[in-house]
């Protein structure tokens, strides 16, 4: 059973049409008579703000949901998919926004799962492994089939997902925000793989919030907004600004923050050292000062200590050495709760894991920290009316798309959960704000809003430490940019003092003096 090249055995998918697809969830019309089509050999990008209905539309094409109304035609013939098995059967594969892998099983086992084996009922993992080696080499570097999935990096896990689809002979592959979790380097590798796949005759549907990616890889773009189809364009005939306008429904302003007179030092880090998760040295002596009314951006390739630094500042990771001062008070030994109470706000990188409770409602998540604040209590009782007013204001201001305040947040789209947590943290009027990847997985409209809020907080005299892998974001917002490499700060530059290329060099470990000369 050799699979992977779409031409043999399975009929090739020439054309897929989704006609007038309508899908309702309790309280939300996720897709409203959407039409979408894709032809063999093309890359069709799907754009839209958080909650626009992109994942929902694709999940229907993959058989995870049944459309309430509408039709799916493949090569002109109508199909009804009752489960992913049916979609796989006709040659459709899907890489999900949240990976669908079993961490405690090996790569080979994950790939073989659900397939008929050549020695049924026994497994034939040797054969599967050989094929995985072949496929992974064909589309990038080899992946060890006997490795456990939990041992792999995020980028490698994604390649396993792609191999899973290829192994099943998928000729149409849906990629739901494949780049959201990747480092810039991994994105480049992924694009090489995707281009190779297209050359071999595969068809791709590509979902992303990043316009430059869409412009770089797609032939056509379809934009959804609030569950409705806004339009489909040829990528070559559309500009970035037009796409933004289609997605958001208005123009998004270019931010151009003016320098402020910076205030006193609010956050001071002296000689900070800490260990990483694997017992290696992650931070090797960090020194940094952040003034009130200033945004300091931390640039760097992920894995160079960003996460550890943020966690040390927040008080959820042990420091080995060094002090942290907030408004000249030593907070190095305070636990998280106390740091929050004395004016620190922290937006964690893993917001789904560290920042929210999936089963709780929208309103409950807004008050995870502040439920005991005198503002929302009468003695030992909670003042639900006040809480409700506040929560609904936040939801309105941040444009969080939710059926209601009592909806469990696990039913919100990925980006909307992000927005809600951002809203909560930014509403707390802190002295110092630590924001790790604040716009990851967030759509353009919301990104603009979050950026505005950050700048507004800066004007109010808050010291902001912005940790981001998005270099554009750092360059637009930061007054000063610190570059982190292997647990040390390579240098700190004023905005406009260095080019993006020079910062890139420092991120690769080139010293500041050398980088500035090039």
């Amino acid at each position, binding site marked *: 059973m050799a699979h992977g090249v779409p031409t043999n055995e399975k009929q090739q998918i020439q054309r897929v049409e989704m006609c007038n697809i309508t899908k309702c969830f309790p309280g939300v019309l996720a897709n409203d008579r959407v039409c979408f089509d894709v032809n063999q050999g093309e890359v069709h990008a799907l754009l839209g703000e958080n909650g626009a209905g992109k994942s929902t539309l694709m999940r229907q094409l993959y058989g995870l949901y049944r459309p309430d109304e509408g039709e799916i035609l493949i090569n002109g013939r109508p199909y009804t998919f009752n489960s992913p098995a049916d979609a796989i059967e006709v040659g459709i594969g899907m890489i999900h926004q949240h990976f669908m892998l079993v961490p405690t099983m090996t790569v080979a086992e994950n790939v073989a799962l*659900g397939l008929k084996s050549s020695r049924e009922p026994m497994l034939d993992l040797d054969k599967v492994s050989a094929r995985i080696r072949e496929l992974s080499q064909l589309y990038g570097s080899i992946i060890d089939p006997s490795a456990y999935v939990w041992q792999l990096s995020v980028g490698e896990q994604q390649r396993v997902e792609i191999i899973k689809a290829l192994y099943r002979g998928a000729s149409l592959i849906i990629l739901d925000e494949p780049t959201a979790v990747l480092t810039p380097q991994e994105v480049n590798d992924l694009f090489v793989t995707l281009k190779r796949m297209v050359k071999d005759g595969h068809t791709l549907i590509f979902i992303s919030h990043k316009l430059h990616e869409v412009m770089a890889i797609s032939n056509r773009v379809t934009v959804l907004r609030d569950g409705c189809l806004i339009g489909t364009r040829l990528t070559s005939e559309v500009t970035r600004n037009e796409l933004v306008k289609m997605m958001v429904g208005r123009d998004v302003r270019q931010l151009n923050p003016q320098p402020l007179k910076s205030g006193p030092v609010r956050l001071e880090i002296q000689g900070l050292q800490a260990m990483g998760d694997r017992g290696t040295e992650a931070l090797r002596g960090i020194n940094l000062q952040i003034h009130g009314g200033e945004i300091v951006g931390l640039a760097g390739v992920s894995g160079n200590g960003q996460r550890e630094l943020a966690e040390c500042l927040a008080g959820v990771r042990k420091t080995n050495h060094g002090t942290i001062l907030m408004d000249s008070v030593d907070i190095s030994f305070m636990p998280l709760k106390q740091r929050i109470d004395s004016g620190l706000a922290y937006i964690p990188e893993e917001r789904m894991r560290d920042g929210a409770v999936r089963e709780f409602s929208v309103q409950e998540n807004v008050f995870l920290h502040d439920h005991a604040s005198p503002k929302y209590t009468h003695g030992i009782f909670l003042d639900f009316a006040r809480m409700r007013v506040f929560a609904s204001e936040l939801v309105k201001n941040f444009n969080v798309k939710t059926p209601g305040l009592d909806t469990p947040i696990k039913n919100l789209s990925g980006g909307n959960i992000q927005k809600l947590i951002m809203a909560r943290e930014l509403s707390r009027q802190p002295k110092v704000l630590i924001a790790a990847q604040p716009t990851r997985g967030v759509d353009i409209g919301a990104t603009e809003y979050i950026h505005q809020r950050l700048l507004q907080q800066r004007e109010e005299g808050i010291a902001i430490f912005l940790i981001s892998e998005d270099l554009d974001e750092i360059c637009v917002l930061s007054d000063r940019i610190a570059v982190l490499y292997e647990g040390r700060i390579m240098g700190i530059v004023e905005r406009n003092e260095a080019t993006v290329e020079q910062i890139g060099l420092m991120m690769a470990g080139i010293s500041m003096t050398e980088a500035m000369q090039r």
Partner: protein
Amino acid sequence: MNDVFQLSVVAGILTSAIRLATPYLYAAIGEAFSQRSGVVNLGVDGIMLISAYASFYIVLNTGSIWLGLLAAIVVGLLMGLLMAFISVTLKAEQGISGIGLYMFGLGLSSLLFKTTIGTVKTVTGFQPVKIPLLGDIPVVGEIFFQHSLLVYGAFLLVPLAWFVLEKTTWGLKNKSVGQNPAAADSLGVNVDRVRYVSVCIGAILAGIAGASLSISLLNLFQDNLTAGQGFIAVALVYFGGWKPVGILWGALLFSTVNAFQLWMQVLGVKIPSDVAIMLPYLLTIAALAITINRVRQPAALNKPFERGES
């Protein structure tokens, strides 16, 4: 005490240990099938009780041990379907439904026993089968190779279950729906069906465990015949790290302690019988306390699956 006497006592304890491990093995390996797919079935003891009753009743009235065994299997299957319907289809809290199943089994078996049999009677159940040649080896033969078919079956189940769970495509499905049902679902694996089958296999084996008590080891039935052995079987699954071989060691450990305390009572050694009976249960708690942090349970254990929740 002379040497020969000591040797025969040790041999006696070991022989009993092998015999007594039988119900633990069937029930715990069955429970492992169920739990690896993500369903905790706390009703094992209840299933054992009804099946023990059913097989005993059939043997008492027909004299056929095979019909008796069949009755245990059918009753186990029915109880398994009930458990699967409640916990997989209706997505009820598994712990509560399991306890419910246990109480149902306990009550029903006791009621049926009182109405249809009344007093403690005995039957001729599965008889010891001496394995040619091996059974003639002195001491060793007596310990290992002179048991009833159900005892041999329990030990053969260990490699068989290992093979099914680790080496077959179905075993992979079984594991994946217990670890990440959404992932299995996205590859077209029918999560509910795999869980139904797993729970039913578990329940059928629990049924055989019950029969092994009433028509093989004890050849009688009375109220609450199992005395909580089904719960120990559940504990053994944790102890054995959801692996058949781990369960084998656990089952042998418990049955040996049990055999030891029985023999001590027979020999009139002066320990209070209440303490002696408590011994295996104390051991359960101690063993669990020691092992529980070491092993990783299936990630989706106790979690009903609904598509589109992640």
